[in-house]
């Protein structure tokens, strides 16, 4: 790969005229603006032409919005359960029945097996449960002391059972649970990657910039970490976490454990970039100008490969999400009462349960969609990361 890196990319003096360009410029054909557009604008143009990446970006925006507004979007709170509806199957949404319009589902008819006491649920067409938007339901906190009790969608009478995606082993609404789980599952990747980023950039940067013996030492460490099978390591570390730790403590401990392995990839990327940039003319000239090491790194080198860095970061989030899901699925990651997609999937471990309630696999669909979106965006970013390449 060749790097026609423009040294002024991160320089505020050249960034100023770019700020004057109006918003309409984006919609004009890029050919005319190409020479005066900033690096980031070029990256965006290139990214935009990648169709899958744009789909992925839309998916990501949806996922993180769901994470942000989870209590409002979910029909029920994360602690709402009804033991009458354990493993109740998903209800079908109806728009019209008996010529009566309106979004509604049918209530359940409960039957108990006299021998096994197992409950079976069948939908009862006579028991109509109306659904509404902005309905009153379980109260939740918005920010600090501010609470609200409106939910985007839910039964008009909060007492009615609505299980759009079925119920789990505690009789909780799986749809609400998946929405609540989005928070943990989508942020654990971000926090983990942020930690790994710190480690990776520092060590990789030192390794690539200083070179010599330090480089060899750090590279050996990276190789060592990469040669370890990650899951046994994670499992061992996760099993070592004290059982009486609170949910927050556990959350951060798990992210640290995940980051311990993930930093190596980033360190290699950063080192490679530093090595290839070290001899570029603009870096040499900056050094000859008397710029100190820190200034050379942060002012001249880092801006020229930050887009690559963001692409690598995006591509390492999915691995984190998958790892958290796997650990929690095995019962060694996050634990109830924390709700994440992995914790929800743990219920599906037993294939007898799976036979009766296959909808318990649905959190897995959320995992797959989230990982796909992130991979698409990461791929698009990687292709767009070097906009000066023709």
């Amino acid at each position, binding site marked *: 790969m060749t790097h026609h890196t423009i040294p002024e990319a991160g320089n505020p003096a050249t960034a100023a005229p770019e700020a004057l360009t109006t918003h309409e410029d984006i919609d004009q054909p890029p050919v005319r603006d190409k020479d005066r557009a900033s690096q980031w604008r070029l990256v965006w143009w290139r990214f935009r032409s990648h169709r899958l990446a744009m789909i992925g970006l839309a998916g990501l925006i949806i996922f993180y919005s769901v994470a942000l507004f989870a209590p409002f979007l979910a029909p029920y709170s994360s602690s709402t359960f009804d033991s009458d509806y354990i493993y109740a199957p998903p209800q079908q949404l109806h728009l019209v029945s008996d010529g009566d319009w309106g979004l509604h589902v049918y209530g359940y008819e409960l039957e108990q097996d006299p021998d096994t006491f197992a409950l079976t649920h069948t939908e009862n067409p006579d028991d109509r449960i109306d659904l509404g938007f902005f309905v009153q339901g379980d109260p939740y906190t918005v920010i600090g002391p501010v609470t609200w009790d409106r939910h985007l969608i839910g039964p008009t009478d909060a007492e009615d059972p609505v299980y759009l995606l079925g119920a789990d082993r505690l009789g909780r609404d799986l749809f609400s649970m998946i929405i609540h789980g989005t928070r943990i599952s989508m942020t654990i990747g971000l926090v983990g990657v942020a930690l790994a980023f710190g480690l990776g950039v520092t060590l990789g940067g030192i390794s690539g910039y200083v070179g010599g013996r330090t480089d060899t030492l750090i590279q050996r460490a990276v*190789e*060592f970490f*990469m*040669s*370890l*099978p*990650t*899951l*046994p*390591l994670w*499992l*061992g*570390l996760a*099993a*070592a976490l*004290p059982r009486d730790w609170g949910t927050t403590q556990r959350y951060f401990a798990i992210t640290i454990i995940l980051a311990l392995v993930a930093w190596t990839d980033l360190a290699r990327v950063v080192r490679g970039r530093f090595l290839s940039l070290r001899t570029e003319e603009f870096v040499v000239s900056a050094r000859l100008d008397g710029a100190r090491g820190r200034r050379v790194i942060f002012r001249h080198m880092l801006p020229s490969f930050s887009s690559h860095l963001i692409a690598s970061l995006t591509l390492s989030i*999915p691995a984190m999400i*998958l790892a958290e*899901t*796997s650990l929690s*699925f*095995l*019962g*060694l990651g996050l634990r109830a009462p924390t709700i994440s997609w992995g914790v929800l*999937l743990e219920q*599906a*471990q037993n*294939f007898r349960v*799976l*036979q009766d309630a*296959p909808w318990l*696999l649905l959190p*897995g669909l959320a*995992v*797959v969609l989230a*990982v*796909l979106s992130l*991979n*698409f965006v990461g791929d698009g970013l990687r292709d767009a990361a070097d906009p000066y390449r023709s």
Partner: protein
Amino acid sequence: MLTFIGRRLLYMVPTLILISIVAFAIIQLPPGDYITTMIAQMEADGQSMDAATIEALRDRYGLDQPFYVQYWTWISNIVFHGDFGHSFQWNRPVGYLLGSTLPFTMLLTFSTLLFTWAIAFPIGIFSAVKQYSIGDYVATTIAFLGVAIPNFLLALALMYIALTVFGQPVGGLFSDEYASAPWSFGKFLDLLGHLWIPMVVLGTAGTAGLVRVLRANLLDELRKPYVVAARAHGLTERRILLKYPLRVAVNPFLSTIGWVLPALVSGEIIVSQVLSLPTTGPLLLRALRSQDMYLAGAIILIVSVLTVVGTLLSDILLARLDPRVRLGAR
């Protein structure tokens, strides 16, 4: 070549020592030890143990010694006597438990590796040669999906399909009638009949990754001037492809064993747990949950060592095929 191998072997020694320390440190991390777990269990059952017995047990296993003493006892027994210690939970030597599960783990990992290659190779070549064809798009989509679907989810989904569509539970490596039978041709066939499910489940992610790598490499090679020159000389397309670009593009393929292997070993644990296979994975999980430290430590150690050895083998293979590797590393 010999110098290359010699130096790589030398590099391996500190790596292996480090791995053994990490493995031992991990199993030492949890507060308490197996005796604590045992006491808690007995108390839950309404029994109790007198202090003298507890002391005797601790003393016997050296559980109250400092870390380095325990580590040294552990590792020297393994290296010099091949003794992996005693599993508290199973009340059997760890070596025995490993002997009955490790062959299956290796069989599964190795056959998955072969499967991954057998599938990824033709698909990768196809998608590079026929770039942007329908087949390429299909392969790319499947590759993306393969990376995005967690192994255990695929295993669960397959299990559910087998259960509802074919009406038979999948899982294990043998049918009931062969489970405790001595080895025979019938048992071998039965094993093959069971092996393909975990193999496919484990192989998807690796295959997907390799297809992407091979496709990218081959595309880079195909654009180079020497390919144009070969074509101008009137060589057939097949010959052009197989004779030059493919051989260059395959190099990274081999070097990826280094990261495919750790991933396979990791994936094996979770897939085996879901499909209840008689491999080291489920054994490790149980050992970690009950703080059966010698068993857990031995499995982590062995699995890591095997991975490092596998990576070394792939490096040697790569050096054998590509002179740049063995000369450049001088």
